[in-house]
C-alpha cells in the first residue's frame, strides 16, 4: 500500500470529485464548441455576414483560455488528485488503459495544433482551409471523448473484462455507447451556454441571430442527450440501481441534476424559438453556474453508485483488490489482508510503526483507520461523511462496540469489508473511539 493522504473536511475522494466535475465544464466545451463555431463560420460565408466572424473570434479565444488553461490542467489535475488520493486505483486504470490514454494524447496534440491555427489564421487563410482546420479540431476533440468515455464507463461497468482482462472488452463495456452518446449530445448544451454568453456581448442583429442558432443547436443536443441518459440509466447494473434508490443523498443529487437540466432546456427553448432577446449576460452566467451544479450532481451519482468500489467488483474504495482475475494472474487481496494484516504491506513506514506495541497503539490505529476510511470520510468533526459524527450516532460505549461495527462493515452494500486483521481492527477501533466527543 502507498502512503495515505488525509484531507480534513473534504476527504481525498472529494478532491478528485471537485476537480473532475470542474473539468467537465471546459472539457465538454472543448468538445462541443467548434462544431457550433465552424457551423456559424460557414453561415458567415454563406450569408455574407462578416459580423458572425466576430463571434467566432471571441468564442475561440474563450475556448483557448478556459479550455486550454483550466481544461487541460484540470484534466491532468484529475490524474494528480487520483495519484495522491487513490494511487492504486489510478495505477490499475493506467496499467490497463495506458495505450488508450496514449492514443487520446495524440488527439490532444492535434487539438492544440488546430485550435491555435484556427484562432490565429482567421481571416488570414482562405475560408475553406480555415473551416477545415476547425473541423479537424472538432473531430480530434470528439475522438478524445470517444476514448476517455471508454475508461470512465469501464470503472462502473467493467463487463466482460472481469473474466478476460482484455483491453477492448473493458473499453466497449455495457454502458459505453449510451454514455458516449449522452455526453456527445449534452456537450452541445455546455457549448450552447458558453456560446450564448459570448453572443450576449455582441451587437443586436448579430446577437439575436446567433442566439437563435446556438439555442436551437443546444436544445436539440439536450433533448437527444436526455434520451441517451435514459438508455444509460437502463443499462446500469442492478446493484447500482439499488444503491441509487437506497441512499437518499444519491436520489437527492438526481433530483437536483434533473431540475438543472430542465431549466437549461427551458432556457434554450425560450431563447431559440420564443424570445431570443431574453438572452443576456447575467442569465447565462447564472445558467453556467447551474450547469456546473448539474454536472457536479450527475458525476456525484456516477461515482456514488459504484460504491464501495473504485473499479466495480474489482477494486474497493480503500484500494484493496476484491476479486481474482486469473486472465492477468491477479489474486484477490481482501481475505489475505484480513488474515495476515495490513501492516506488513505498509513498507513506506519505519519499523517502529509496523508492529503494534502498547506505546504506538493509537498511532498505528490511526494509520490503519486512515487506510480504510480516509478516501471517503473526513476525520474532522465536520465535513464529508465525518467519522466522529457517524460513529457518534452509534453511541458506542467502548472501542469494542466500534470494533464490532468494523467487523460487520462488509455486510453493508455500499461499504468495503475492513482491510486488516483482528488486532489491527482493534487498534483502529481504539483510535476511532477517541474521535467521538464524549
Amino acid at each position, binding site marked *: 500500500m502507498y502512503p495515505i493522504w488525509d484531507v480534513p473536511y473534504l476527504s481525498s475522494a472529494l478532491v478528485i470529485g471537485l476537480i473532475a466535475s470542474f473539468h467537465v465544464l471546459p472539457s465538454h466545451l472543448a468538445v462541443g464548441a467548434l462544431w457550433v463555431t465552424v457551423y456559424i463560420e460557414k453561415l458567415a460565408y454563406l450569408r455574407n455576414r462578416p459580423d458572425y466572424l466576430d463571434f467566432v473570434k471571441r468564442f475561440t479565444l474563450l475556448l483557448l483560455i478556459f479550455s486550454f488553461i483550466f481544461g*487541460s490542467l484540470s484534466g491532468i489535475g484529475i490524474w494528480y488528485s487520483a495519484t495522491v488520493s487513490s494511487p492504486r486505483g489510478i495505477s490499475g486504470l493506467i*496499467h490497463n488503459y495506458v495505450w488508450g490514454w496514449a492514443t487520446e494524447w495524440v488527439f490532444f496534440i*492535434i487539438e492544440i495544433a488546430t485550435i491555435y491555427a484556427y484562432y490565429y489564421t482567421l481571416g488570414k487563410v482562405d475560408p475553406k482551409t480555415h473551416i477545415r482546420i476547425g473541423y479537424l479540431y472538432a473531430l480530434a476533440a470528439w475522438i478524445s471523448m470517444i476514448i476517455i468515455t471508454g475508461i470512465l464507463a469501464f470503472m462502473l461497468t467493467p463487463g466482460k473484462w472481469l473474466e478476460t482482462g482484455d483491453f477492448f472488452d473493458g473499453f466497449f463495456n455495457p454502458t459505453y455507447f449510451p454514455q458516449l452518446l449522452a455526453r456527445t449530445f449534452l456537450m452541445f448544451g455546455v457549448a450552447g451556454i458558453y456560446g450564448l454568453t459570448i453572443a450576449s456581448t455582441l451587437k443586436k442583429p448579430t446577437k439575436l441571430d446567433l442566439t437563435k442558432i446556438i439555442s436551437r443547436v443546444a436544445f436539440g443536443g439536450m433533448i437527444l442527450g436526455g434520451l441517451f441518459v435514459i438508455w444509460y440509466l437502463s443499462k446500469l447494473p442492478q446493484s447500482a440501481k439499488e444503491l441509487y434508490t437506497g441512499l437518499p443523498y444519491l436520489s437527492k443529487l438526481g433530483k437536483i441534476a434533473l431540475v438543472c437540466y430542465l431549466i437549461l432546456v427551458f432556457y434554450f427553448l425560450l431563447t431559440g424559438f420564443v424570445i431570443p432577446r431574453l438572452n443576456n449576460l447575467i442569465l447565462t452566467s447564472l445558467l453556467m453556474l447551474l450547469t456546473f451544479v448539474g454536472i457536479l450532481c450527475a458525476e456525484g451519482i456516477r461515482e456514488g453508485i459504484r460504491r464501495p468500489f473504485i473499479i466495480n467488483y474489482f477494486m474497493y474504495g480503500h484500494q484493496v483488490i476484491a476479486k481474482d482475475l486469473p486472465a492477468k494472474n491477479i489474486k484477490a487481496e481482501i481475505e489475505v489482508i484480513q488474515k495476515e494484516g495490513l501492516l506488513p504491506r505498509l513498507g513506506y513506514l519505519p519499523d517502529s510503526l509496523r508492529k503494534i506495541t502498547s506505546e504506538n497503539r493509537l498511532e498505528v490505529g490511526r494509520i490503519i483507520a486512515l487506510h480504510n476510511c480516509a478516501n471517503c470520510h473526513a476525520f474532522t468533526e465536520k465535513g464529508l461523511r465525518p467519522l466522529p459524527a457517524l460513529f457518534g450516532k452509534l453511541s458506542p460505549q467502548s472501542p469494542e462496540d466500534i470494533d464490532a461495527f468494523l467487523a460487520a462493515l462488509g455486510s453493508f452494500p455500499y461499504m468495503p469489508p475492513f482491510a486488516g486483521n483482528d488486532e489491527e481492527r482493534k487498534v483502529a477501533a481504539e483510535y476511532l473511539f477517541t474521535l467521538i466527543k464524549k
Partner: protein
Amino acid sequence: MAIGEYIKAMRDVAGLPSPPIVFDFFLVLTFTFHILLVNLVVGSLALIIWGRIKKEGYWIKLSSSLSRLVVSSISWAIVLGVAPLLFIQVIYDPFWYTANTLSAVWALAFLVFIALAFVFAYCFYLGGGYEGRGQIIWPFLSLALLLLAGIVIHSLTVTQLHPEKWPSFAIQNNTYISSGKYLHEFEIFRFLHFIFPAFAVTGTWLIFYSKYFKEKYDSAYLNWVEKLGAKLILVSSLLQAAVGILWLITLPKELNFISNPYFILALIVALLFIAFLFYMQKNPSQYAVPTALFLGITVFVMSIAREVLRMSYFGLVGYTFADYPVNSSVGSLVLFLLTFLMGLIVLYYVAIVAYRAGKGIKEVGAHQLGKASVTLMWLWIIIMVILGIYISLKNGTLF
C-alpha cells in the same frame, strides 16, 4: 520488509500491456519534446522581462513577439508533458506514487502554479504585450510560478530516487504525516541542469525567427535577433556544462556514473555541440537547421543519460523494470501506433497551414493533404465504432 521488497510488491498487479522497454523509449522521447518546450517557455519569459526592463526598440519588438510565443508554448509544454507523465507511472509506479503521496499537497499545488503562470502570461499578452506594452509584473509572476512548479516536480523526482529515505519522510516524532504538506528533497545542480538549457532552446528559436521573418521585418533588427540567439545558445550551453560537472561530482559514489557509457556518450555529444556553437557564431541563420537538429539530439542524449542515471539509482534498491510482468495487449499498442502515425500526417498538414499563413500566404493550398487528414480522422471513428459494435454484440452488452 526491506524497502526493495516493498517497491517490488507495489508494482501494479495488472502487469504491463507491452514490454517495459517500449514504455521507456516513449518516456524518454516524449520527455525530450516536453523539456524542450518547457525550456522555450522559461527562456522566453526571461527575455520578455529583460526586454521590458531595457525598454529599447529592438527589445520591445522582440518581447512583443515572444508574448505570443509564450502562451502557445505553455499549451504545448503542458500537452507534451502528459505522455511522459503517463509512461513514468507505468514502469516506475512504486516510486512515482510514493513520492507524490508523501508530498500530496505540493503535487496538486504544482498544477495550480502552472495554471496561474498560464493566466499571467495571457494577462501580459492580452494586456498589450503583443503591441509592445503590457505590465512587467505579469511575465515576472508567470516565470516565478513556473520556476516554483519546476522546483516541485524536481523535488518529487529526487524523492523517488531515494526510497531508503521514505520511512523518515513519512513520520515526524513517531507520528505519520498524513497531510502531505512537506517537500523532501532538493539538489541545486540537478535543478539548474534542467533550467539553464532554457536560453539555448530560446536562442535556437530566435535564429529561426530571424530567418522566418526575413521579408517581414528590417534586416538590422533580424541581425540583432540572430546574434542574440547565437550568443544565448553558446553561453547557456557553457553554463550547462559547468553545472553538469558540479552535478556529476555530487552524485553518490556508488553509482559510478562517470564511467557509465551513456554518460560518456552524452558528454561527447555535448562537447561536440559546444564546439559547433563556436563555429556557427559568425553566420547563425545559415546554420539554423543544423543547430536545431544538434540541439534536439543533444537534449535527447542527455535525456537518455538521465534515464540511465535514474535506473542506476533504482538499481541500488534492486529495482529494474526489466522483470516487470507483462500481460500483453497487442491490440491496444497497435491502436496507439497507428493513431500516432495518423497524428503525424494531420500535424504535418496543420504545420503547413500555420507556416504559410505566418508568411502572409492566404491561399495556403495543400488541399489534398487536408482532405486526407479529415478522411483519416473519420476513418478512425468508423473503425472504432465497428469494432465497438462487434465486441459489444459478441459480449452481449449492446442492448
